[in-house]
């Protein structure tokens, strides 16, 4: 019945034994230099570790297995990229508007993959135990692979569409990209334990599902098989990273009771930081995918409310509670994407991707998904904008917005209990005023004001004369953005013109 070959005579080491050989007994107490000089960052955050060997990677991945599986992933991915290019796969997407989600991804997310590579390489060096060092090293290599494969895959789109030509440069300069950039630099400039709580736990474990899973599923639904493939190739590593995130938290919590309040504070901070960053994802899901998988509100319910309940229930045995202001995020779920899309619609003349008003059919979908908010608060706004555009007066906000000092997003979020009023919060520090979009962002500032008074706020930087000039055109040139092609509404863009030509060709000579 069983056609499998008999087991080899020599006993193979079990998974647990192989992992133990890799991660135990490799480190030693240094003698030429004292340990605290060799590992200078490991204690100043106040986290106490008594037994580094208590760390265990649940996957127990050894180096040989790591190389083998990673090579297999690369082989599969490059086969797909190759055939996508040869078969002009970009012609099979649902609509060229979809490519704008890729533009945001390439300029906003892919550079973070590279930052993650650097971050994990750094903290991997600074942990004492061999277990976490190896897990961090593997993740550092994974993240470098993610950055490379994403750039490689999307380079195909760069041959045809605007706004994809200089993501690294844009990431460092363009106003809305300061949101992801400052998020990650905040984490990288923290100590190694906070970095892992921020990125491995709060971001990878708690929130990253909301970025990758609906986005990749959305890519598939919109005919973009290349993106699906790099997404899944990365996401298969992500499952391991998520496990690392949960493991590091439990490890720290189990090591010493005194670690609990420190970690809770970090979870509060990084939940809110990450949630604000995901505002960009909410608009991708509800507005930028021509064919939609699920709404932001549904994704939030599935991946934060339900999954988060289970997670924090599990962590409650250590005295950890749900992150502060999670209930505010849940209150915002019915308006987040609409508010964020409105912000980008206001300032598309300064963005490296296009925005547009949803079609009537799309508005019907939004009404159905957001029955309590869409028709009441957003449809009238969108209909007004649609009319203005029909009259040839597409609305662009001519004045730069106030930004939140912490998350750096324009202050377009409304009061938790009132969708008609902007939420303004402020604090004084050393005689100067600072403004925030939410209590969450204000708390983060007040816990570490010295850090956030250094925020490089794009609007203020323009006014200080640090961004190439005073006119939009000057600033866009400094961003390396092509005025008149990369920016403005999708309607009338070169992307649209090209796409419509392709569709016309398809119609006249079907292949």
């Amino acid at each position, binding site marked *: 019945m069983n056609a499998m070959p008999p087991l080899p005579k020599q006993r193979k080491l079990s998974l647990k034994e192989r992992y133990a050989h890799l991660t135990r007994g490799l480190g030693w107490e240094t003698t030429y230099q004292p340990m605290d000089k060799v590992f200078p960052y490991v204690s100043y955050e106040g986290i106490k570790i008594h037994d580094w060997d208590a760390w265990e990677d649940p996957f127990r991945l050894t180096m040989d297995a790591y190389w083998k599986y990673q090579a297999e992933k690369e082989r599969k991915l490059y086969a797909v990229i190759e055939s996508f290019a040869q078969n002009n796969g970009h012609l099979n997407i649902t609509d060229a508007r979809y490519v704008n989600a890729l533009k945001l991804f390439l300029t906003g997310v892919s550079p973070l993959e590279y930052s993650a590579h650097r971050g994990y390489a750094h903290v991997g060096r600074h942990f004492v135990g061999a277990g976490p060092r190896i897990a961090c090293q593997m993740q550092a290599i994974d993240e470098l692979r993610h950055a490379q494969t994403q750039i490689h895959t999307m380079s195909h789109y760069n041959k045809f569409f605007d706004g994809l030509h200089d993501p690294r440069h844009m990431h460092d300069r363009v106003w809305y990209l300061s949101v992801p950039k400052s998020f990650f630099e905040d984490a990288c400039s923290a100590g190694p334990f906070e970095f892992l709580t921020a990125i491995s736990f709060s971001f990878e474990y708690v929130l990253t599902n909301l970025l990758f899973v609906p986005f990749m599923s959305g890519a598939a639904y919109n005919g973009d098989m290349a993106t699906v493939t790099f997404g899944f190739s990365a996401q298969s590593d992500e499952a391991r990273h998520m496990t690392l995130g949960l493991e590091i938290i439990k490890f720290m*919590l189990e090591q010493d009771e005194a670690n609990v309040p420190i970690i809770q504070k970090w979870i509060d901070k990084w939940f809110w930081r990450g949630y604000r960053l995901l505002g960009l994802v909410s608009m991708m899901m509800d507005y930028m995918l021509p064919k939609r998988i699920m709404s932001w509100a549904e994704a939030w319910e599935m991946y934060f409310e339900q999954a988060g309940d289970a997670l924090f229930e599990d962590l409650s045995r250590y005295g950890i509670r749900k992150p502060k202001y999670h209930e505010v995020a849940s209150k915002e779920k019915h308006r987040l994407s609409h508010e964020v899309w409105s912000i980008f619609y206001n300032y598309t003349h300064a963005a490296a991707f296009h925005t547009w008003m949803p079609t009537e059919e799309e508005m019907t979908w939004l009404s159905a998904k957001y029955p309590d908010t869409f028709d009441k608060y957003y449809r009238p706004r969108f209909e007004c904008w649609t009319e203005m555009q029909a009259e040839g007066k597409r609305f662009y906000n001519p004045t730069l917005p106030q930004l939140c000092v912490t998350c750096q997003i324009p202050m377009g979020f409304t009061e938790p209990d009132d969708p008609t009023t902007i939420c303004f919060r402020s604090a004084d520090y050393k005689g100067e005023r600072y403004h925030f979009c939410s209590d969450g962002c204000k708390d983060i500032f007040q816990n570490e004001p010295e850090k956030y008074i250094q925020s490089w706020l794009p609007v203020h930087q323009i006014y200080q004369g640090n961004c190439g000039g005073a006119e939009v055109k000057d600033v866009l040139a400094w961003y390396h953005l092509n005025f008149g092609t990369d920016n403005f509404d999708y309607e009338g863009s070169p992307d649209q013109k090209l796409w419509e030509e392709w569709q016309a060709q398809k119609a006249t000579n079907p292949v």
Partner: protein
Amino acid sequence: MSKVSITLQNTDEGRLLVEAIVADNPAAEVSWMPALTKIDCEDRLSLRRETIEARFGRRYDLQELQLSLISLAGNVEEDDDSFTLAWAQGAGSRKA
């Protein structure tokens, strides 16, 4: 009371893995989405190497899961014969 979850790619191997999981975990709920499948299960969910090998018709190293995984929720416990996701039984039982 808490659900664990695993999400797999809709590839040939991924589909066989879903079948194997459903066979071993009758309480598992399966949701199909474009390109991926999410499986949720109360408290715990196990993949057994034997069940997978029977479907694949070949030897299977559980670490090959790395190639099909997208996401998971729950504490992971893996050895040579099984891969388990579980939430802790009874809060407060293992306080540090």
